[in-house]
């Protein structure tokens, strides 16, 4: 019913295996640790194997080895990149002075992408969208003011170590509670997602495996 396994023999085997694995994981609930650990190891092994295969088949061969072998002149930049990767891999044997710049380039690149994207793609457009237009209706204006107030209170809650008066302390406490409320609300969303997963697993066992649910 979830459509991932076909009606042929391999599909039937896959369905049975998935059902047994699900029950084996749930056996932890009644204290059967061995089966659970076995399933954990199986998952770790399968995930590692899958990642290795993916890295070789979809990344290393088609995007590194093949271009370097077939058209080395068109992909000259891959050579220094390869050297950098080699230095990272051999980091534990190479002198720290040689490895540190490579690590710095890696971390700096990732940070630049993330930070640049966050500023240009999220902060600025969201501030622009949150600013009430000249012809904004009263509810929109009120919403903007409330958003600004909540944001300010939450930011004040982060002012650890700064000198505080009575008002600031109260505002920080309120901000902290708003933050806790926000996290609680988000956890509620997460519960719905996880509950859907559990309901889906039960539907899989009853529908795909035992075929009592249609």
């Amino acid at each position, binding site marked *: *019913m*979830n*459509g*991932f396994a*076909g009606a042929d023999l391999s599909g039937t085997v896959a369905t049975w295996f998935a059902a047994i694995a699900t029950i084996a994981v*749930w056996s932890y*609930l*009644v*204290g059967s640790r061995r089966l659970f650990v076995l399933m954990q190891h199986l998952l770790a092994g399968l995930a590692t194997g*899958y*990642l290795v295969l*993916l*890295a070789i088949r*979809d*990344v290393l061969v*088609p*995007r590194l080895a*093949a*271009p370097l072998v077939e058209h080395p002149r068109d992909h000259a930049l891959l050579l220094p990149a390869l050297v950098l990767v080699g230095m990272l891999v051999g980091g534990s044997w190479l002198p720290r002075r040689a490895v540190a710049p490579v690590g710095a380039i890696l971390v700096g*690149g*990732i940070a630049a*992408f*993330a930070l640049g*994207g*966050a500023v*240009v*793609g*999220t902060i600025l*457009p*969201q501030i*622009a*969208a949150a600013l009430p237009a000249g012809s904004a209706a009263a509810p929109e204006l009120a919403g903007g003011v409330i958003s600004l107030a909540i944001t300010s209170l939450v930011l004040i809650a982060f002012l650890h170590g700064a000198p505080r008066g009575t008002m600031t302390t109260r505002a920080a406490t309120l901000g902290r509670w708003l933050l806790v409320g926000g996290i609680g*609300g*988000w956890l509620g*969303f*997460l*519960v*719905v*997602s*996880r*509950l*859907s*997963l*559990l*309901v*889906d*697993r*039960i*539907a899989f066992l*009853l*529908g795909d495996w035992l075929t*009592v*649910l*249609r």
Partner: protein
Amino acid sequence: MTNNVGPTLLTGERAARLRRAVPTLLLLLGLVVASLLSGGIDGLRLASPDRSRVDQLRAAIRDLPDGALVLIACDADLGTYPEIRATTRAAIDDLAARGARLAIVSFTPEGRAIAAAERARIARAGTEDPPADLGFVAGAEAGLVRSIASLVPEDAEGATFDAIREGGGGIGAFDMVLIVSGSDISARSWVEQVGSRLPDLSMVAIAPTFLDPELEPYLRSGQLTALLSTLREGVAYAQAVAAGSTSSRGPTPGPLPMLVGMLIALAVLAEGAFRRLVRRGRRSPGPSPS
């Protein structure tokens, strides 16, 4: 004497362990019964009565030009994909019915596994062609940015790949991107990295409920054209698309098991709060004797 105490302790430990498992086992049993009864109850409906989000996505697909190129960015998470599986399949059906030429790509290993499974499912069903496979792109956000210029594997052959190459070979060649979110590379990454570089590209997203608070501001600001990010909206969309497709979308969670699960979750919260109150009440000193 030691021989007698050992087994008793073990049995006691096991009994305690089983006692601890009782609430969870009851939850499972409750969900099993609710799943079995779900089909026979007409009064409950999971689909959202508010169709505005559904209409937004349907309108975005309807407004696509004939033979539009649509990229499905499949970066769902294995732990939340069941929630959006039916919605994703409905969107693929909707796009195929509109005559869009589909291609699928992933920027996370998990997303790649799901994309491969979905392509295999569509091929097995045989009702429509599976989306052209653009494979897995490594490098997370850097890979996403690189894909703006070049996305098609060099050895890829086919009409859809040729059309993408004619349009420049990167993400800019597409008329729309359907972002199936759930993992680290979510619709937020697309908005931040691609939306700021290709502002005219239409981006629609399907996401599990826990991403709703993160993604909703992008819909309000217009950075996302459409967004389905709750289970109820997803079910409403899957029902709206239902016509015309024979391929299996897989079951959507039944309303009764979801209701039972939520009630149990609330009961657990209430029980925890009540227990804490009782404990606090015991700790507080009683009235001083006069």
